[in-house]
């Protein structure tokens, strides 16, 4: 399986609390819900086509805990809500024990080795949704094969950001770029090693 990630970001790179004010108030964050004004059918179709490719999910514990009380009550039979409920959910955690929401598989040791084994196993996509801290950790270890960014046309002005102030560089290949009618950009990037710096461009711009 290839490891593909999806993340909603604001124009200033914030990922915290996209869906609503109470979704994620860590650090006193009170600007949650910044995606609410931009939902539309096109964005939904993009999401459906993306979930249709999933064979398993990889979730951070916090994201799993946000999903766990919600999705079992909201299975509409579509590829998004039904997929989330029935596909295996892998959660790196040392605190989550005996999860009732099945199928959930807790990874409580050798997270990197386990993820490499999952990537080497047959299947289409192991998808990570949200889970900012986990995604950052995976990017640092070059484990992400594809990065789907949904960039909302808003400057949030505070909150947690996906990319660290100091971290490894990444060269990226743009695989796909689309925009929705409400102004959300859907960018698919493929990480391709470290970036190259300092090279003068042909026209010295």
């Amino acid at each position: 399986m290839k490891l593909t990630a999806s993340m909603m970001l604001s124009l200033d790179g914030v990922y915290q609390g996209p869906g609503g004010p109470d979704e994620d108030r860590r650090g006193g964050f009170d600007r949650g819900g910044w995606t609410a004004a931009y939902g539309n059918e096109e964005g939904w179709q993009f999401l459906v086509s993306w979930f249709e490719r999933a064979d398993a999910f990889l979730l951070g514990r916090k994201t799993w805990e946000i999903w766990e009380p919600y999705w079992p009550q909201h299975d509409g039979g579509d590829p998004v809500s039904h997929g989330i409920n029935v596909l295996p959910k892998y959660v790196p955690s040392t605190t989550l024990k005996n999860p009732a929401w099945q199928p959930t598989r807790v990874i409580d040791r050798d997270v990197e080795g386990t993820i490499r084994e999952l990537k080497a196993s047959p299947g289409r996509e192991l998808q990570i949704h949200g889970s900012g801290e986990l995604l950052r950790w995976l990017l640092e270890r070059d484990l992400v094969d594809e990065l789907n960014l949904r960039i909302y046309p808003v400057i949030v002005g505070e909150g947690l950001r996906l990319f660290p102030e100091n971290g490894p560089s990444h060269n990226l290949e743009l695989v796909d770029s689309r925009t929705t009618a409400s102004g959300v950009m859907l960018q698919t990037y493929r990480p391709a090693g470290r970036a190259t710096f300092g090279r003068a461009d042909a026209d010295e711009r």
Partner: protein
Amino acid sequence: MKLTATVQVSVDGVMQGPGAPVPGIVETAGFDRDGWAHFDTDAGVEMDKIYARADVLLFGRRTYEVFAASWGTWPDPGDSPIWTALHTKPKYVVTRTMTSPTWSNTIVLSDDVQTAVRELKEQPGAELQVHASGGLLRSLIDAGLVDELTLFTFPVVVGQGARLFPETGPHVALDLLTSRSTPTGITIQVYRPVGATGDSD
């Protein structure tokens, strides 16, 4: 004139050091990843078109110094709208430390920048352009003075350096006017700020 701003950013929002290091310009301590904005022909043509629309240029002090040390020292290549704009259009630079800039057509703005910018915007013409100039640009966005923001987003995570948007600031919604991508994966988006909306609560 409308005020349009153009910034080269990385996917992680960094705006520092897009071009190769410029002789005589010292980057801030801890930043050694200059030269991450690799232009292709398509993006270069787009940047040329932007500069060709400029009637007046407005810079922060640091960006001005980088431009003066590079474009300001280069001979006229004869076919560069960027060179022509930078050498023939009035250049305003916001600074309290620089008093007598040597690059021709430079006018120093040292106080009440917002009023000066409002007055410039009321003058006839096509575009008052800001390029890079992060600190200045943010203050102009926050003051509601930016009519269009064009981002050249390069397909790279730089991993260090100053970012366009600070950790904390006003909440601003924007309209996406146009978006396209170039052959090497640079995306060019034009946004129109629709105003500070305040905190969501």
